[in-house]
């Protein structure tokens, strides 16, 4: 049983750039994720960029959401729901 060639593969900065968005969204397969993480461990510039993308995604999530609590829209929609038949 010989080791697979894949285990010797390394990601460079261009690979990281290409897969960055899928990494942020946790959509890489196991092997890609391992290689990606390995690159971030020794490449500070890439690590900083990825941390930035994570933070931006988090900010979009927290600031773009519109709470639906105790307001007119909420009452209207809930009463519409109650009266469906």
């Amino acid at each position: 049983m010989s080791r697979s060639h894949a285990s010797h593969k390394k990601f460079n900065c261009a690979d990281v750039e290409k897969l960055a968005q899928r990494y942020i969204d946790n959509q890489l397969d196991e092997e890609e994720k391992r290689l990606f993480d390995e690159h971030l461990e020794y490449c500070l510039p890439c690590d900083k960029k990825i941390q930035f993308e994570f933070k931006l995604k988090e900010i979009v999530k927290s600031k773009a959401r519109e709470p639906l609590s105790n307001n007119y829209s909420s009452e209207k929609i809930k009463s519409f729901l109650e009266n469906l038949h």
Partner: protein
Amino acid sequence: MSKNKHTLFSELVKPHLTSLFSTALRMTHHKGDAEDLVQDTLFKAYRALDQFQENTNFRAWIFRIMVNTFITGYRKAVKQPQKISYDDMEEFFLFKRLDENKELQETSKEEFLDTFFDDDIKEALENLPYQFRLVVLLCDVEGFSYNEIASVIDAPLGTVMSRLYRGRKLLQRNLWAYAKTRGYITDVTVARQS
């Protein structure tokens, strides 16, 4: 174990009302239209409830109904941004612009993101063409997976990814424009040094 249809529907839909309304508002830009869109969606979903298969993904199912309702009934009323240029679509666009800026070289680029107000983020999103905006909302705000989004918007996975990545880049470009025009970033540092 027989629940009446109305009770069952209410229980299924209530946990998702905030998400539906929030997405509807970002898509239509107006509270009144968002209320109407959610109500139309609830009405259609209720009527079609027999077609929903129990123990499958209700959240994706009802979002799909809302997206179809939006596209057939509301899209035309929504102002689309005029010409969009797809120049400057490089990866890490915002990070790179901030990194080039003299003012910010010593500060953390991540911390700079806290400068943006809720309204900046909302405006940056609302100024995206609706196809891109929808996918960014579904992924970043509502946390749907790529596969779920593909089923919600009824498009192949490749389309989901290209719209999402393009949408995020346009969003970064909008934020960069706001940072400059709203004074979060200035070039005065350079001037002061002379």
